[in-house]
């Protein structure tokens, strides 16, 4: 079962560069290694926050707008795809991400139909 973990943070309490951020980057790297060793890692990437572009074509004509599809207080900054047994396993990995302490991790099961 594959799950997409959507990681967010709140820009108002943005961490400045410094030892704290270095320590967090270290934890991300350890977590990625742990996921690979456990054989659950499928894909992951960081996302830029200010350069999103949204495309819509409600009546056939493309409308391009600057920014994410919805303005929210929490900003999506990264995603991870994992392949694990069930939701409890996905929750256990989400709990290990630093994002749960200052932001949130949304767990989206990937539709089984699209995997075939």
């Amino acid at each position, binding site marked *: 079962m594959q799950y997409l973990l959507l990681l967010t943070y709140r820009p108002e309490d943005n961490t400045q560069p410094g030892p704290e951020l270095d320590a967090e980057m270290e934890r991300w790297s350890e977590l990625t290694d742990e996921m690979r060793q456990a054989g659950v890692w499928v894909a992951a990437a960081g996302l830029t926050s200010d350069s999103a572009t949204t495309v819509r074509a409600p009546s056939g004509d493309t409308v391009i707008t600057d920014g994410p599809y919805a303005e929210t207080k929490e900003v999506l900054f990264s995603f991870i795809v994992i392949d694990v047994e*069930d*939701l409890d396993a996905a929750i256990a990995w989400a709990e290990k991400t630093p994002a749960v302490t200052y932001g949130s991790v949304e767990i989206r*099961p990937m539709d*089984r*139909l699209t995997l075939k």
Partner: protein
Amino acid sequence: MSALERAYRDERAAVLATITRRLDGDLALAEDAVQDAFVAAAVEWDRRGVPDRPGAWLTTTAWRKALDRLRHARIAEARAADLAQPVSYDADFDFERSSLDDDQLRMIFTCCHPALAPEARMALTLRSVAGLTVAEIARAFLSSDSAMERRLTRARRKVTEAAIPFRVPPDDLLPERLAGVLRVVYLIYTEGHGSVRGDLCEEAIRLARLLARLMPDEAEVAGLLALLLVTEGRRPARVDDAGALVALEEQDRGRWDRAAIADGVAMLERALRLRRPGPYAIQAAIAALHSQAATWEATDWPQIAGLYAELARLDPSPVVTINRAVAVAFAAGAAHGLAILDDLGADPRLESYLPLHAARAELLRRAGDAAGADVAYAAAIALAHSDAERAALERRRVRV
């Protein structure tokens, strides 16, 4: 009651739990298949008579229906292969009590999974474990049948799509998940208790009894059942002839159901033998002490104050501290109780917390401070949400 109705009441939850396990936790498909099996039973049993073992018949039929649905679905082949279950229908179902019990327990933990919304946990538990009909659940939650059906369908779809596991959680998750299950049963009880509707109270007690049978070594399961039984024993005196709620202090203790209370006390003793008491066992012990007192005044207040202190340590909340203050006031004098309330009142978040003002008013009255009590009653009355609440406070205020 017809054989079919009896099977629906007695066997449905077990059939559903067995099929759900066989489908690797696909609760949405299992629910549809079990429904199909009951539809088939309505026709077949009428024509050919009731089978010897209705539960076994329903289980094999539901399994066959589930496979039919899988075959017809677009992804039938892929999924059916995934399941890797033998396609022989009749021989390989385990109808042993212990196996059925295991599946029931898995179903309880799945229905009470924290990834489901709290209202969905209650509704799904009542539907899939207690076996209530959608209409019964809708009535209990003052909802329409169609809204309740949508809530249940959405919850079952999430169980399936998000792959909420169909299992009893492993040891590292068990304490937290079991606490979640007990919370759901407790909330079902208070939902019935708060609205003076007995049906949900009885269902909650049935669920707690089932859990106590399935998990006989869990002290908090016994503690919760004890708490519910003792509380239930007092229910006949909770409402007066006009339908108004009666405070414990003013209840006619002759109307209490002594048999239910004795059951609860016996269950409490079992809980206390198992382990150090947890929050439910402590609340049950407090309820038991109240129930054993001949009058409000004769209550064992020192022991109740001690139990509230222990409860505040394990599971702190303003309401526990307020109850402790009241118990201390009766055990050691109103001034001691008021001192606890004053500490609590220093928290600005509790400025508009009605129970705090109401308790202060009561203790000030007992301390002989009529003016102070009047001011505190006025503050509480200003915060009341319902006319009944306001009227009850007004009644107390005029006694000052």
